[in-house]
């Protein structure tokens, strides 16, 4: 009994500690917020100490670079410091929305194209029209506008393409995919490679659950996006059956990993990424992630555009955006920072291609001579895709919940609990709720 008591008191003591600590820190934040508004109100705007809150997602390389850029900004503007929140992509939006609901969103937010419609619709993003955007390609800049007003400024160029383990292909004596290769070439190559691999190695992933690759496949047939930008169900039945039956066959032949192995694959996880640990040869990917792969597997990565059909498969897009929260107290200071972030050469130098190819042509020209291998690969994928590309579709607003249903249906198909025909009908039925 004595030991029980001891342990109980230990638990209670640590709980109390934890609670007090939590209490203190939340008080601490408040304390920092207050003086800025009141005591320093009569100081000049220039040296008024300001703490900007900024939030982004990404890989370690992007985190490191961003923190360095923020340090540089603080050095040049000693009155501005940053409170950072950074993480991987999973759970980012949940956290952000919860903060926004509490009117406590960070001042500067990294935003994805797919969320802009909903956020703009609720009027949560501040007007960025006064930013200096003269070095940005107007076509890309327009993707950040809502009703003609700039609310999100693109940070880099990106493309949806293919990476592969170049070193492994060389060893196997297989030629790398050529520019303009077709899906037929691709599947033929994949089946040729399979017999040369060891047990536990696979050529490509099972595309049954991959929405992006399927979109690329359907686009290449000239049948448009599976869900159109204006919110219509547009899965082409014949294309869907061709795609899913092809992968059912590849699954049977062991060209693609079995479902449980596939689900363990996690992009850019040093131990769980199958391409990094040598168990996979090809992967569909965004160009902005290529340099991170190069750092995990130096010198071994090759890039290609998506395979083609009668049309191109891949697409160009902006990587993502910076926006300013409508609730921010420091809109002007945040704007100044973003302006510097996209246009300053030193900031661009530190950032490299961790947010895709720098969006400012001026910064890009300055950086080009010093590009690393990873950066060059990113450029190469974008250039290869640019030869022949589709117009990006961020997805219609209000379809966020469809993703869950579609994922479930696709997984059931991958685990062979459904036939491709049933999956098609299920997708069509699920989409009915969201079509307007």
């Amino acid at each position: 009994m004595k030991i029980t008591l001891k342990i109980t008191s230990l638990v209670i003591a640590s709980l109390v500690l934890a609670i007090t600590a939590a209490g203190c820190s939340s008080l601490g934040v408040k304390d920092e917020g207050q003086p800025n508004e009141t005591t320093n109100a009569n100081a000049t705007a220039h040296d008024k100490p300001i703490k900007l809150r900024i939030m982004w997602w990404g890989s370690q390389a992007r985190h490191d670079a961003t923190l360095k850029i923020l340090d540089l900004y603080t050095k040049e503007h000693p009155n501005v410091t940053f409170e950072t929140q950074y993480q991987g992509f999973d759970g980012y939006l949940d956290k952000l929305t919860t903060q926004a609901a509490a009117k406590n969103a960070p001042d500067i937010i990294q935003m994805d194209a797919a969320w802009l419609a909903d956020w703009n619709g609720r009027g949560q993003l501040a007007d960025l029209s006064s930013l200096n955007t003269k070095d940005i390609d107007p076509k890309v800049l327009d993707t950040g506008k809502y009703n003609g007003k700039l609310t999100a400024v693109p940070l880099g160029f990106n493309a949806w393409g293919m990476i592969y383990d170049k070193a492994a292909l060389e060893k196997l004596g297989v030629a790398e995919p050529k520019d303009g290769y077709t899906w037929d070439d691709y599947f033929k190559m994949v089946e040729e490679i399979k017999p040369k691999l060891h047990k536990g190695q696979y050529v490509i992933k099972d595309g049954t659950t991959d929405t992006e690759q399927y979109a690329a496949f359907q686009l290449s047939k000239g049948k448009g996006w599976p869900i159109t930008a204006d919110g219509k169900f547009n899965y082409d039945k014949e294309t869907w059956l061709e795609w899913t039956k092809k992968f059912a066959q590849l699954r049977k032949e062991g060209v693609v990993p079995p479902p449980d192995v596939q689900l363990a694959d996690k992009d850019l996880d040093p131990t769980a990424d199958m391409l990094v640990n040598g168990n996979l040869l090809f992967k569909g990917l965004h160009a902005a992630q290529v340099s991170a792969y190069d750092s995990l597997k130096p010198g071994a990565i090759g890039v290609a555009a998506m395979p083609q059909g009668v049309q191109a498969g891949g697409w160009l897009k902006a990587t993502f955006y910076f926006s300013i929260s409508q609730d921010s107290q420091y809109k002007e200071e945040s704007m100044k920072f973003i302006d510097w972030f996209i246009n300053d050469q030193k900031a661009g130098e530190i950032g490299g291609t961790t947010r895709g190819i720098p969006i400012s042509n001026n910064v890009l020209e300055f950086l080009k001579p010093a590009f690393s291998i990873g950066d060059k690969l990113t450029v190469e994928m974008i250039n290869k895709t640019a030869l022949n590309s589709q117009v990006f579709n961020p997805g219609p607003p209000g379809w966020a919940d469809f993703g869950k249903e579609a994922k479930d249906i696709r997984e059931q198909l991958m685990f062979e609990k459904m036939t491709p025909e049933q999956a098609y009908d299920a997708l069509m039925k699920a989409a009915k709720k969201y079509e307007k």
Partner: protein
Amino acid sequence: MNHGKNHSYAPLAGYLFISPWLIGFAILTVWPMIQSLYYSFTDFSLLSPPRWIGMQNFKEISEDRFFYNSLKVTFTFVITSVPARLVFALFVAMLLNQKIRGIGLYRTIIYLPSLIGGSVAVAVLWKNIFGMTGFINHITALFGIAPKNWIGTPGTALGTLVTLSVWQFGSAMIIFLAGLKQIPGELYEASSVDGAGKLRQFFTVTLPMLSPVIFFNLIMGLINSFQSFTAAFVITGGGPLNSTEMYALYLYEKAFAALHMGYASALAWILLAIVAVATAINFLVSKYWVFYENDTGGNR
């Protein structure tokens, strides 16, 4: 001051003394509950004001296949993990009830992991243990079994979560241990004089004497398991094929990923009703198997 006056002040003073707790309870528990009850009849996206829609949420829930799936998953989890954890906790408690040297140290060492058992860190550890290159696959490889991704296979994913739940036996074990200490030694002496062996003693002395403690652990375990969230969120994220999408996880997804706060509030109230009914049933059934010391067994 006279006695009468003192007497009339006593309740007020009492309430004053517990007022910090009462105020906290009112503001942090009762008020949010009332709010969520209101939200359950609204369409509320968190970012725009709630809109009254009556029973619409409950109607939609009754047609929601993910709701039924999460119920199935949660019940499977509760029915397997609660008894398994009780049995395991009792087993460990009996081992730790031996009179050997340094037993205090053993108790501490064995209890220690449970202090961190429900945490995210342990869940991440679990994910690695059962992962493709994890510890479990190294063991099974010794027996010539091909490695598999335990958390990525619909048939075994929930099992890994049940195992983790059983491994978090510590608090139940401590309570069992305290209960075991309370059983008078005379009962064992008397029964052994009557010729009862160890096994017989366990079933006729230990279990009945321990039944109030078992009942307490059962109720607490039941309530906790119905609300289980962390493990599923961190380890499997509800997959594969939604085979580990626990009720609380689905509720969280609806609330914070899909921003259907009203729908999620309705789900929360349904869960409350389910837990209440399960607890009530247990209390009713308890009459037939729980013995209190002043009990004569006449209830049977």
